[in-house]
């Protein structure tokens, strides 16, 4: 029973953290899993490290499955960010595994030298958990200020009198623009694409106007038209994949293609916890929620006889993918809290982290 109640804790904790719109998905996952670790310390002490790892693994899986299961009850502006979930879960698990591995190596070395008894081993397991918790909170801290760091680095690339194109509403990009305007005191103009189907571009325009940045909303289809007036393109990322490409809101690939064709730089701004060890070969290889979403189904034929039932906007939104993959050759630079990276540098960072 304690198991299930703990599991439930994780999922609800995760969802409540998600509701805080300022937290990005991986950070919310970190928080939820750290709380889980803390609770498992108090409520029921997993006697061995392997059991602990198993329960942790189960909790992570439950978050992943939960997000894939429910589709109807989600609020409108929160689509299933599968890849961000993957990134967060993977990173946390890797961090814990690394920690446990270092710990066990250290411990076996100690054991060889001093020959500790079993009871002491249990005690040191408590130490391990304490260690884990303190390091996890350290990671959380780092993650929360990662966005600010990335924003500071990203804002360097905006020049005075630049015209910037952004897509929809992205929290990172917003912080980049605020940073450039308020802290670096640069004057620039922004074109914001509407960002169908959830039209969060309109919100972005409102927010930017409040901050005093001159901006304009444009249709998604007008990107080719205005690209010549633009100096640079900023895109956010839900996940950065291993070859340096990014997975972001649908429409990002199109914008990058047009920008590349017209010789405009595309800067992708992402925090480093969004790096994930996924390697897509093409658009249809990304771990999105419904890979068969764009096939032709026979559903149509059944409803043929009924009234020409034009799909509503909501139907269109649900039956179309919400993310797409931009290959690395269309991205000029990746601006992260680790610094400015070229797309091929992402793999180096990932290897340092994971291998």
């Amino acid at each position, binding site marked *: 029973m304690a198991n299930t109640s703990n599991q439930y804790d994780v999922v609800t904790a995760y969802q409540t953290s998600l509701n805080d719109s300022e937290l990005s998905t991986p950070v919310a996952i970190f928080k939820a899993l750290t709380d889980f670790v803390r609770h498992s310390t108090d409520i029921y002490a997993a006697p061995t490290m392997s059991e602990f790892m198993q329960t942790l693994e189960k909790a992570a899986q439950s978050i992943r499955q939960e997000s894939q299961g429910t589709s109807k009850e989600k609020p409108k502006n929160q689509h299933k960010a599968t890849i961000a979930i993957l990134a967060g879960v993977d990173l946390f698990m890797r961090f814990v595994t690394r920690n446990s*591995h270092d710990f066990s*190596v250290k411990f076996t070395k100690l054991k060889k030298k001093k020959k500790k008894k079993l009871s002491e081993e249990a005690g040191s397991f408590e130490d391990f958990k304490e260690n884990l918790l303190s390091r996890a909170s350290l990671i959380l801290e780092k993650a929360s200020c990662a966005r600010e760091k990335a924003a500071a680095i990203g804002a360097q690339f905006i020049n005075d009198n630049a015209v910037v194109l952004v897509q929809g509403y992205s929290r990172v990009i917003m912080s980049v623009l605020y940073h450039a305007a308020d802290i670096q005191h640069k004057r620039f103009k922004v074109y914001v694409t509407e960002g169908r189907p959830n039209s969060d571009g309109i919100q972005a325009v409102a927010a930017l106007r409040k901050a005093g940045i001159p901006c304009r909303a444009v249709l998604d289809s007008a990107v080719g038209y205005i690209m010549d007036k633009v100096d640079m393109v900023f895109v956010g990322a839900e996940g950065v994949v*291993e*070859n*340096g490409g990014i997975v972001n809101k649908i429409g990002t690939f199109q914008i990058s293609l047009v920008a590349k064709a017209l010789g405009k730089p595309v800067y992708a701004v992402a925090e480093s916890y969004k790096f994930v*060890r996924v*390697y897509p*070969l*093409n658009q249809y*290889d990304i771990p999105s929620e419904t890979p068969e979403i764009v096939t032709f189904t026979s559903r149509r034929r059944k409803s043929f006889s009924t009234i020409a039932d034009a799909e509503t906007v909501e139907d269109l939104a649900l039956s179309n993918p919400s993310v797409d993959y931009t290959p*690395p050759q269309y991205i000029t630079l990746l601006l992260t809290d680790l610094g400015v990276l070229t797309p*091929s540098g992402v*793999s*180096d960072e990932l*290897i*340092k982290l*994971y*291998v």
Partner: protein
Amino acid sequence: MENIKSSPLGIPNSNSSKMASGSPNTMGQPMSSSYENRWLSTGEDTKKGSPLVSRRKSITPEENKPNNSKEANKGKKDTRPQNPNEPPKKAQKDMTKAERRAMQEKQRQEKQSRVAAGLPKGAKQAAELEVKKNPSPVSADTDDTKQKKKALSKNQQNQVPWLLHLDVPKTSDALTKDLHPAVLQLGLYFSEHKIVGSNARCVAMLEIFSKVISDHKPPSDATFSRHIQKHLDPHIAYLLSIRPMSLSMRECIRWLKKEMADIVEEDPPLSDDESRTRLIERIGHFIRERITMADQLIVQNGLQKIQDGDVILTYAKSSVVESLLLETKKKGIDFKVIVVDSRPLFEGKHLLRRLVAAGIDCSYHLLSSIYVALKSVTKVIMGAHALLNNGAVYSRIGSSMVAMAASDKQIPVMICCETYKFVNRTQVDSFVLNELGNPDDLVQTTTNTYDAKKSDTAVLANWRDQPDLRLLNILYDVTPSKYITLVVTEVGLIPCTSAPVVSYKFNCIIKTCIDFYFYFYYYLLYRFGVNTSNEEFGKRVA
């Protein structure tokens, strides 16, 4: 051969004929550098089908000796090799004062011009240098040296001139005398192409070295650990001379040398038996971890990328790709394979045989129809011989064509490569370092053994007699990194530009990785009951 050989730039060679004449032009011709001599005079010589300067350097001492002996026989005190056309020099006693002064003047001028040209001051040394750089033409009566040259040039005269740097130096018999018989046998297998494929060769080589190490008894005055490296060096040299450019073998040898050096450094020093067992154990580890287990991990990683309905194209035969495809079939995934093949090795046929035996839906194309084959392909998977530092792939000749054609059609290209093949070398073209095969392999155009009797009616049978015809059988090529989508290694899927980072990381933290992979290895053994015997590799014969 003419007596007066004009230098490559068309400047008359006033080498020895005008030396005594005293004209200021003696040393006035531009001192041809060795580079000019090597490449430009090489071009001139191959037109005549005569031996090359590179060979000439080893021949000149032989040439000079008969020349010198002849001059000595003529009774001259001067040791400078001279043209027989030259008038005999007067001894100083016989000259008048005026003549002596003229001779002194002439010698002073010569010395000045020599110094100006950058040669050593002494006349004798300058002459020696001259001889080395501009070897004097052979006179008609040195027939035996001519024949010797012809024997050496029999192979070289039909090689493509600008690829001669890839040529294999022949080993003399003296070198093979003291070698372990197993190594000689291995060398024979390599040269007869009985063991092909980089993995198979590496494993065979390491196992043979293991045997050599276990059989080796050091001389009484040296410890095993210090002597073993010296003992292995001639074996290594012999193997490298058989198949020169096997990059992955070089990496293995580099690793082995490092291990041997580590054993020497060991403090307190290990006993002979201990170091022997340790070395053998380490070799076994290497084979298990970085080849056998790496292959299994590559298969696991590669499986992620293969889905139902895939049409996979592969080129020639790679042991890893074969394991991957067989494993995919075992998993029950519905896929098709297209095998692309090329002359003269036709390695794809062996792969095809094995895939069909496993029940996989296959088809077979030659490289010339690659675009036709690519029509329905969803993925291209190939193996590699080595992965270079700039992310380029060094692989069987023809793979770069497949990669380029596939990337032209926006088809992803995956390379399967173990990390021990990551080489610390950069190459942008395929010619700087490569391996030449036997040009006679290209002559036979029918593969039907029944028609083998008619082999002398092959069109190219007498190609060596054609003075302007060269056959080129080159074995490897380099595929630039922009045509490769990803590389599947045992550490995961990486972009090919990350190859140096992985090899660096791997060498740094290899110990912790080994622990981790060991657990994974035993897990795999437990789960899949994989056959880990290394005989499999030995059985991969043509």
